[in-house]
């Protein structure tokens, strides 16, 4: 830290610029009048117009949102309960089941897609939203599980024990004491699951069914079959919403600081992504 040379900062800036370059170009070309992206045909909003008229695109967006919500919700329930259960019950099968349930984020996605497609076809489950949700939940569970587990490990157990000693039922201990403390971890796990589900192409391609196009699948076919700058317009909007959310959450976070301060302290240890053990 004594080294106050500017070189590292320049490096960070340059890499960041390269990371954002394609995104900026996509945004710029969303305002391009011409259909071919190598030609600049002047400023135009016509692709936004096309986008808003494109029913299929919005259906795909809707499907993706529903899918992401269901799978992150499912993962939240399964992952939270599972992580909680494992801290309270000692089972010999724990390590095996834990290992297997973590596999979906450890193996290449193509394998998951492959096994789900063959497996669902084996058990005769019709391809569609159900299969999508099942498949996505599978790879969302590990995210919630790991975050909740990390939170549970760092948590003060005496509160729950005290409550139990005072005669509170297991369910009450869980809902009144443990769960509220886990909320930040669950939410971040869900948020992450949501993002992963929203962006998944590979697994979705294999398990999707009739008239269930998710946004990434739609984008993939569009890119392969000739993109119209409509896609650029959509990306620009998504980016806008993301930035808006980030700004909004920052602003809200500042307003609610006195209230949120306690949470911040508790979650502080989790903030750094590198908290292992």
């Amino acid at each position, binding site marked *: 830290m004594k080294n106050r040379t500017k070189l590292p900062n320049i490096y960070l800036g340059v890499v960041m610029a390269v990371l954002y370059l394609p995104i900026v170009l996509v945004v710029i070309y969303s305002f391009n009048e011409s259909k*071919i992206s*190598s030609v600049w045909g002047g400023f135009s909003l016509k692709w936004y117009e096309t986008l808003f008229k494109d029913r*299929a695109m919005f259906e795909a967006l809707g499907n993706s*949102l*529903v899918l992401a*919500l*269901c799978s992150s*919700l499912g993962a939240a329930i399964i992952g939270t309960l599972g992580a909680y259960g494992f801290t309270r019950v000692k089972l010999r099968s724990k390590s095996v089941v834990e290992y297997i349930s973590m596999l979906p*984020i*450890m*193996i*290449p*996605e193509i394998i998951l897609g492959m096994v789900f*497609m063959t497996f669902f*076809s084996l058990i005769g489950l*019709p*391809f*569609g*939203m*159900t*299969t999508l*949700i099942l498949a996505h939940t599978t790879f969302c569970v590990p*995210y919630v599980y*790991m*975050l909740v587990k990390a939170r549970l490990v760092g948590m003060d157990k005496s509160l729950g024990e005290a409550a139990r000693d005072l005669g509170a039922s297991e369910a009450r201990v869980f809902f009144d004491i443990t769960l509220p403390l886990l*909320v*930040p971890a669950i*939410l*971040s796990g*869900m*948020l*992450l699951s*949501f*993002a*992963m589900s929203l962006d998944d192409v590979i697994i979705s391609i294999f398990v999707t*069914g*009739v*008239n*269930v*196009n998710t946004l990434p699948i739609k984008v993939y*076919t569009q890119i*392969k*079959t*000739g993109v119209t700058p409509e896609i650029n317009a959509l990306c620009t909007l998504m980016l806008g919403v993301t930035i808006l959310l*980030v700004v909004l*959450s*920052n602003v*809200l*976070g500042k307003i*609610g*600081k006195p*209230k*949120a301060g306690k*949470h*911040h302290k508790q*979650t502080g240890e*989790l*903030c750094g*992504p*590198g908290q292992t053990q």
Partner: protein
Amino acid sequence: MKKIIALALSAVLALGTLAGCSSAPASGSTAASGSTAASGAAAEAGELNLYTWEGMFPQEVLDAFTAETGIKVNYSSFDTDETMLAKLETAKGGDYDVVIADDYIIETAIAEGLVMELDKEKIPNFGNINPLYQGQFFDPENAYTVPYGSGVQTIVYNPDLVDIEIDSYADLWDASLESSVGITSNFRVMNGMALKMAGESYNTDDVAAIEAAGAKLLELAPNVRLIKDDNLQDDMISGEISAGVMYTSQVTLACMANPDLKVVYPSEGIGFGIMAQFIPVNAPHPDAAHAFIDYILRPEVSKQCFEYIGYYCTNQAADELISEEFRPFLTLPEGFTADNMEMIQNVSAEAMEAHTKVWTEFRTACGQ
């Protein structure tokens, strides 16, 4: 696994910035409750599940059909015939109402019992079909299918970027075309090109011949810039490739955009194909499917479709409606009849395995 670290990213977002405000995720949970019901094969009248390549119908035609009949069209798309067949197999011939795919795959689908026999009573416009495109190998009795466009494999090149005169497949091997040829990703078409050059049939079962063709194809690898089924014409128009083996629809689009492009019907022989509509055997809405097929066979609707997709018009009642600028592209060139062209048909499992292997080898060679 791919995005594990994103975990960290989102954790930071959630914990660092959203810790104080739980509103964003909470608002979502209400919407989630009833949505599981949205799964696949809900058999309700007033719907039609259309399954074909992306961009096979102008939106106006689909909208007009819905406006007239009240049947909502759900358009889903596949990238290759094989994907379609795989999906149809896993759905056991259900889920979809109208499928449009290539001839040879329809033959397989029919053989597998995945296709429903058409009820021609419900298709009064059946007579509009040009008989030239009927009675082919995949449906000799015309019991299962209604053709929706036809095309031949053509070479297109940009004379501004190519120094030689191309008039055969063999010319694509010319060293001057290094890294500038675009080809389709249908391996039967591409391996077939090499087979044709050796005077073989597209449909030979002779593994040795296929392997010999594969060896010939390997020599083409340095010239290949791009392997792509859809939208090859855009790369032609933008100058990314200077010559390409294309389907009729792509030729139409490319030539409409750049009239200077040259179209070549390779001297080694012409490959010919038909796309057709069929109804899967367990289609959830067979009546809607028949109504749709009949609607598409109306001459004025057909005209709209063909001018949109750019394939040879298979509806003879629509021929005269086709506008002047499209006419040269939408009718079979003179002298071409179904007899002197060859269609790609199914081959034995051994031949197919040889094709797949040859193709994988070729693609890998192209990438180096």
